[in-house]
């Protein structure tokens, strides 16, 4: 587990990916403008995508960039600009008494718990399954595809239904009420 066999290119790529992910994550929670937070989110997602690539999950790295950076963040930006909430949130005030210290304490407890659990487990050096290996290179896409379409076929079909339901629900929720019986008293965004 010690990085004795780590080569320099791998190390540089990992450090770059980790720096992108952590700096982007810190940017999300410190920028006061939601647009800047969304752009920081892209930085984090790209960092995680590089980490995927470095672990030979090529299909997921591509999907991460296409779906997250290409669709989800654009959806965030669209909603931010559609609502016009580029007003800055004052993050210096603390409306709830002792919210920050309690948040710090919760995060520290959670992190210590996760890291202690992982280190007790020997950093994921468990028993390796004999079948269904995760190959890298050009066979990664093939392996993910055959797993999704054979072993996880039912779950895959369920996600299709889930996406349809989500889209219909989103349209129903965000639709303007045409009947006018509710309290939409002007000044719609």
């Amino acid at each position, binding site marked *: 587990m010690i990085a004795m066999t780590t080569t320099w290119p791998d190390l540089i790529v990992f450090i770059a990916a980790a720096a992108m992910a952590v700096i982007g994550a810190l940017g999300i929670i410190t920028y006061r403008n939601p647009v800047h937070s969304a752009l920081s989110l892209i930085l984090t997602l790209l960092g995680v995508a590089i980490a995927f690539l470095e672990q030979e999950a090529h299909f997921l790295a591509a999907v991460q960039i296409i779906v997250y950076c290409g669709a989800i963040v654009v*959806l965030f930006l669209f909603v931010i600009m559609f609502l016009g909430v580029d007003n800055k949130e004052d993050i210096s005030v603390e409306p709830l008494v002792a919210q920050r210290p309690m948040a710090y304490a919760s995060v520290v407890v959670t992190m210590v718990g996760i890291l202690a659990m992982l280190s007790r487990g020997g*950093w994921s*050096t*468990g028993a390796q399954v004999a079948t269904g290996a995760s190959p890298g290179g050009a066979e990664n896409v093939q392996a993910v595809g055959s797993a999704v379409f054979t072993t996880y076929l039912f779950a895959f079909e369920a996600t299709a239904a889930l996406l349809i339901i989500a889209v219909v629900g*989103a349209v129903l929720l965000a639709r303007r009420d045409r009947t006018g019986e509710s309290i939409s008293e002007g000044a719609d965004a």
Partner: protein
Amino acid sequence: MTIPESWFLILAAVIFGIGMFGLLTRRSALIMFMCIELMLNAVNLTFVTFSRSLHDIGGQASVFFILVVAAAEVTVGLAIVVAIFRRRQSTAVDELSELRG
């Protein structure tokens, strides 16, 4: 690939912690959603790392499904944010103190 798994797991834990802190302290619903995405990404990174170390493609298939569920969640969540903004002219969750719309 010779970077040890533990480094990726620590990176994922750090990202998860940052996302959790943001979720607990920020009050804009949009930022809270971004922090949830951050935590989901940390879990995805953990899944991929275990998938590599245990040589099991199931971890990557799980990440695929997490991506789909995250997309659906963001779609519905942002629609709720839009609906709330129509009523309240704000996305701050502190404003949502009444059950009645």
